[in-house]
C-alpha cells in the first residue's frame, strides 16, 4: 500500500518536474501530489499512533458484533496494522468515490492531450477537494507570502521548516520562503472499527458496479 503510493507520488513528481504541461494542468497535478503525500503522511501517522496505543489495546472491549454474527465464534482479532490499513483504504475509497482519484492514477495518461487531461482533472479536483475539506482544515505553515525573507532561530522545528540550499552549521539561518508549507489544523477521518468479519471487504477501494433492470 505504502509502496504503491510512494511510487505513484514519485511518478507524479517526475511528470511535474520534467514534462512540459499547461499551467492549469500543472496546478491540478500539484494538488494531486499534495493529496498523495497527505495520504502517505497519514499512513505513517496512524502507524505511529497505533504503536503508542498498543499497550492499551487489550483493554478495549470486543466490539459488539451485528445480530447475525452474534452466535458465530469470535474469529481471531485482526492484526493492529490491519485496522490502520483499513482506515487508509477507506480514505482512498472516499477520494475515489468523490474525485475518481484511483481511476485517474491507474490510467495511462500518455496518449491523451493536455486538453483531455485538463477536462478530467476538473473531476478529480472538484471531488478530491471536497473530501480534503471534509477531512481536514488545511492552513499554510508560513502565514506570510512565498518569497518572504525569514530568519530561523537555532532551535527551529525541523518538522515545520525544511532548510534547503547552502545551509551553514550555525544559526541564524537566513533565507527565502520557497513554499509556504501546509498543516492540518483539524483532522476528521473516516474511522473503521474492529470487526470479526472477513477482512477482504476492507481491501475494496471501489466495488465493481452492475446495473440491474
Amino acid at each position, binding site marked *: 500500500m505504502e509502496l504503491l503510493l510512494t511510487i505513484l507520488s514519485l511518478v507524479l513528481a517526475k511528470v511535474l518536474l520534467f514534462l512540459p504541461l499547461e499551467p492549469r494542468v500543472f496546478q491540478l497535478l500539484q494538488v494531486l501530489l499534495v493529496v498523495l503525500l497527505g495520504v502517505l503522511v497519514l499512513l505513517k501517522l496512524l502507524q505511529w499512533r497505533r504503536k503508542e496505543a498498543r499497550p492499551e489495546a487489550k483493554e478495549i472491549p470486543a466490539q459488539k458484533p451485528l445480530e447475525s454474527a452474534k452466535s458465530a465464534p469470535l474469529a481471531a482479532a485482526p492484526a493492529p496494522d490491519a485496522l490502520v490499513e483499513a482506515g487508509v483504504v477507506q480514505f482512498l475509497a472516499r477520494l475515489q468515490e468523490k474525485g475518481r482519484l484511483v481511476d485517474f492514477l491507474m490510467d495511462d495518461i500518455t496518449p491523451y492531450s493536455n486538453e483531455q487531461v485538463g477536462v478530467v482533472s476538473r473531476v478529480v479536483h472538484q471531488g478530491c477537494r471536497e473530501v480534503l475539506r471534509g477531512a481536514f482544515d488545511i492552513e499554510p505553515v508560513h502565514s506570510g507570502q512565498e518569497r518572504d525573507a525569514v530568519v530561523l532561530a537555532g532551535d527551529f522545528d525541523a518538522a515545520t521548516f525544511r532548510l534547503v540550499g547552502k545551509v551553514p552549521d550555525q544559526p541564524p539561518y537566513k533565507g527565502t520562503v520557497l513554499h509556504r508549507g501546509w498543516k492540518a489544523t483539524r483532522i476528521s477521518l473516516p474511522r473503521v472499527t474492529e470487526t470479526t468479519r472477513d477482512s477482504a471487504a*476492507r481491501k475494496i477501494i471501489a466495488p465493481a458496479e452492475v446495473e440491474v433492470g
Partner: protein
Amino acid sequence: MEKRYAVGIDLGTSNSALALAPAGPEGRAEVLPVPQLFSFQSVGELDMLPSVLYLPLENEIRSAAASLPWDGEPLQSGLVGQFAREQGALMPDRLVASAKSWLCNPHVNPEEPVLPWNSDLEAGQKASPFQASVRYLRHLRQAFEHALELRGEPAGSMTGEIVVTVPASFDDVARALTHRAAQAAGWGEVTLLEEQQAAFYYWIAQSGGKWRDQVRPGDLVLICDVGGGTADFSLVAVSEQAGVLQLERVSVGDHILLGGDNMDLALAYTLRAELEGGGQKIDNWQFLSLIHSCRIGKEALFADSALSAFPIAVPSRSASLFAGTVSTSLRRDILDSVVLNGFLPRTGIDEHPARRRHLGLKEFGLDYAADPALSKHLAFFLARSFKNTQATENLSGLVARQVREAQGVQFICPTAILFNGGVFKAAPLRERILELLTDWNGGAAVVELPETDFDLAVAKGAAVYARTRLMGEGIRIKAGTARSYYIGLESSMPAVPGIMPPLKAICVVPQGMEEGSEESLPGQDFGLITGELVEFRFFSSTVRAGDRVGDLIDADEDLEETASLQVALPPLEGREGAMIPVTLHSVVTELGTLELWMRHEPSGRQWKLEFNVRGE
C-alpha cells in the same frame, strides 16, 4: 431531576442538526457533530445529518463492518445520514426521503409504511413517515448522548430542556406526530418551536444585545426561509410596552414544497438539454453528477460576480475517465435566466402563484408547488397576511403602519427581512428579494438583518430558546397557535338529491391561543352516546384571526380539512347506550401541542379526542 442542558433539534426535510447551549446566561450555542456512516466500512462526523433512510440489500448488510459509536439499530432497519443519501441516490427504490413533507400530506396515513414512495419493496420492508422521523430523532439522541459521554458526563445524566423545530405551516396533526416521534425516539417531553422563530432567536442571540438597535417599535420583520426542498414565510411585529420591546408573530404562510434543490435540478435539466442538443447523451448516473456540479457551480458563480462561467466535467461511470467524460459549462446567462428569473422573477404584488388544477383522477404524491416563482408565493403571502391581520384589533394595530395598496391589492410590506436557509448564502438571491420588496414598497428600502449561519441558525436558535425556557429569562416571541381550528357540524336541512347539505364549522381554538391556556366552548353541548365511537370532521385555517371560540362559520375555502377526531365514551355505570351531554374544552399545552377534551360537567369526567390518522 434538575435540567442541565439546553438542546435544539432542527428536524429538517433534507438535513437535520443538533445544537447545545450552555446553561448559563453567556456562551454561544454550538452545533454537535453527528457520527454517521461514510461507507459500509467506515464512520465519520458531519455537522448535519441528512434526513434520509436507506434500506440496504441483505448482501450489503452481510459485508458491512461499520459500526456507530453506540449500539444502534441493526442495519436491517436501514441506515441514516450521508452515506444513506449517496448510496440511495443510485437506488431510489430503497431511499426514504422527505419524510417530513409526508407527515403533513393530507392523503396519506403517516403511520402506514408507504415509503419509499412508489417503491416495489414489500410493505414489511418499507417505513412510515412517522417511523422515519423517529429514526432521525433517535440517531440524533444517540449522537447527543455520545457527545456527553466524550465530555465525561455520566451516562444517564441526559436531562435537559429539549426543543424540536417544526415549520410554522405545520398543522396540529403534523405537530402532534413530531412530538410523539420525539418521545418514541427517547427524547422525553419536548417543546415544539416554529423554525422561522428559531432563526429569529438565533439572530437575537448572535447580535449580542445589539438587536434592539436594529429594529424599532412598529417594525415588521419578514422571515424568509428557503431550505433544500421547502419555503416558509413568517411575519414578526415589533412593538413597545412600558419601554420594553415586544415581539409578536403575526402571520405564517403555507408550506411550499420548493427550494434550493429545485434550482440545482432546473440548472441540470437546462445543461442536459444543451448537451443533448449537441448530440451528447448522458445517463442517470451522470445526471446525478451533473446536478451536484450545478450546485457547486451555482454557489461559485453567485459568490464571485467576476466569474462568467463555471466549467463542468461529467465523468462516465467507467473506470476510464478519459473515455466518457463530457465537458460543458454553467454560464452566467443560464444561471440568471434559470435561477434568478425563473425562481425569483421581477413580478408585481398582484401576481400570485398559479393554482394547481384539480383533476378528477390524479395520482397523488407530494404536493409540489405548481409554480416555481418564489416571488409570486411571497406576494401571495403578503396579501394574505393583510387579510388575516385585519380580523382583529390587536393584529391590525401592530401592522397598521405597513399596510400598502398597489395594483388593486392590499398587502403588508415588511420593514426588515431576515433570511434563513442555505440558498441565501448567495448574495444575488438576497438582493433580488430586497429589490422586489423595495419595489412593492413604492421605492422605500427594506432593511436586511445580518444572518451569520444560514444552514445551522435553526438548530442553534432552538438551543437558545431551550435555554430561555430553562433559565426563565430572555426575550420570547409572542406567538400562540399559528392556525385557528374548527369542528365540522352538518347543518340539519331536508335531504335534496344531488345537493350536499352545507357544512358549518364551529371554532374551537382561535388563532394565537397561547401555550398553557385553556378554552371552553360556551353554551354548546354535544349529546354523545356512551359506548360508541363518535367522529368529528376537523378543519383549520391560517387566515381567520378574527374568529373566537364558539363562532359558527360556513366551511368555505378558507378552511382546510386536516383530519378527523374521534372519541369513544366508555359506558357509564347503569346507563349503557344513554346519550349524555358533554362540553368541549381545548387546551394548548406548555409544550405547544393541542388537546381537545369532552367533559361531562355533572360527573367531572372527561375524555380526550384523538386525531384520527389521515388517509383514505
